[in-house]
């Protein structure tokens, strides 16, 4: 028994390291392949459109609610310090610097990483990927590069949109308790935001998008065990992508602070 679990543990650890290595190689391959023709612009555009449409409703709701809730929660605290006028700045800063990018990326991971994992997984188990391969077409270039690129490009756009909605949500929360006009609110938001707040955070979302795309594609592309494998690819890609997003964020936050001290 003990032997058995030990073996299993060893296998898990081995699998863990294997995943790390394979995923890294898989992601690095992207940078080689993305530059090589044929360039599937139509596919990229199609995927971007699909990903956008697919995630827009959920991220919109989330963005709005983040802003709303954040403002409502912070208001009493700021009031205690007599710093209520700081609320627009606080909402916009927390959303733009951290909450917007990370929460959008996590939702995006849940929605898209699983989708890509399932899609490519089922293509793998129904031999569609093999079919491409025997047709002398790079499945990686056609299926993976386009998806990763689409994710990388669409997430920053979604994040900007979420940021905007969150700021609006914050405004609505404020109007519930006091009379503040939109012009004034937006002015103080604009005053509080510097490029240092916006640009690194936005740069981060490209990386998050890349993570979501490549993890989903990796899991799907290497799916095994038929339809069960498809399900596994789908769920495990969400878990892995979310985890990586948080880990990378942890590093990037520090890097941002180091490179652009406030």
């Amino acid at each position, binding site marked *: 028994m003990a032997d058995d679990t030990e073996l299993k543990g060893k296998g898990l650890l*081995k699998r*863990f*390291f*294997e*995943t*790390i*290595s*394979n995923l*890294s*190689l898989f992601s690095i391959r992207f940078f080689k392949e993305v530059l090589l023709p044929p360039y599937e612009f139509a596919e990229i555009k199609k995927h971007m459109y699909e990903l956008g449409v697919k995630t827009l409703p959920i991220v919109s709701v989330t963005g709005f609610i983040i802003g709303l809730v954040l403002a409502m929660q912070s208001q009493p605290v700021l009031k205690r*310090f007599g*710093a209520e006028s700081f609320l627009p700045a606080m909402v916009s800063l927390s959303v733009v610097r951290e909450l917007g990018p990370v929460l959008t990326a996590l939702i995006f991971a849940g929605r898209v990483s699983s989708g890509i994992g399932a899609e490519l997984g089922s293509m793998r188990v129904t031999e569609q990927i093999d079919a491409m391969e025997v047709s002398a077409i790079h499945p990686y270039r056609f299926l993976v590069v386009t998806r990763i690129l689409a994710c990388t490009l669409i997430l920053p756009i979604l994040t900007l949109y979420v940021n905007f909605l969150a700021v609006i949500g914050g405004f609505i929360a404020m109007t519930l308790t006091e009379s503040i006009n939109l012009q004034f609110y937006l002015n103080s938001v604009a005053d509080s935001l510097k490029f240092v707040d916006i640009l690194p955070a936005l740069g981060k979302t490209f990386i998050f998008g890349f993570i979501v795309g490549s993890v989903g594609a990796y899991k799907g592309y290497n799916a095994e065990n038929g339809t069960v494998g498809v399900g596994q690819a789908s769920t495990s890609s969400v878990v892995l992508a979310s985890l990586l997003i948080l*880990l990378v964020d*942890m*590093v990037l936050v*520090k*890097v941002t*602070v*180091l490179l652009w001290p406030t």
Partner: protein
Amino acid sequence: MAKQKSAVKLGIFIFIGFAILVAAVYLIGGKSSLFTSTFTIKTYFHDIQGLKSGTVVRLSGIDAGSVSDIQIVPDNTGRVEVTLNLVTDVRRFIRIDTKASIETDGLVGNKVIVLKLGSESAPLVKDFGYIEGEEPLGFGAIIAETQGILKYTKLMTKNLADITNKVNNGEGTLGKILNDNELYNSATGLTKRADSSLRSVTNELKGITGLFDTLGTGVRTVVRNIDRVIGNVDSIIVSVKAGKGVIGQMFVNGSKLDTSITNTIQNVEKITSDTRLAASRLADNMEALKHNWLFKSYFEKRGYWEAGKAEADIDAKTKELNDKIRLLDQKIEQLKKIDNKK
């Protein structure tokens, strides 16, 4: 199989690489001065208020380094040794009379160490040298102070309440003044009393002048003589002790003149103190009346208050009294001198 093995190896490599990256980034973040050359100085505090290693050190508002170590000094003083790592750029500003203090940064209460520049003439601090730590005004102290103020305010409030109460119940002087329609009369009475004091003062002064007249030219001569011989201290002392000389002859023990001077002094002193009392009472009460809206509106309602005239009257009286008091004081001094010299 071989491929799998190398995949595991690569995985481990990447994992460790990432871990090192995280550690490096966080280390650099924590000790922002990792890549700049630094020097170390120390300071002591009795209470570091939860200061932590890594706390920023500011010099004129510039981040100049960080706290690298905090240690309780192993003796009974309870002092804490705080080691500061400062960037070498600021070295030329840190002199031995530089002072370190713990201050609160921002609204939320981050602690920072603030260095106050010393004098230009003082020598620079050496590596691992000490600078003085100014004890922070602890929260406890602030509370105590606040409580003191509160206590005082409470007392004041209570007194005020008492006064108001008395006023309302018609007790006390002010109360009487307020509730009694005879106020104007009282005020006039007060002025009258001041007048009588003045009269008696004048009388006494007349008396004193009379005394001086009685003393006649003799006293003046004595004073003049004293003035003349003042240069020769020794001879005066000798003369007085021997009961001889001009002064000695003039003031003989038990003489009528002697008693008269002593009595006069006592009399004048008494009058002076009475006058002083009357003057200050008058002034106090009138001041209170003048400035208190309560009284003011009360008087105005009853048409009693011809403010300007009364005030001017009272002021003039007070001034006159004070002048007389000063005059009396001078006379007393003179008399005492004479009395002492007998």
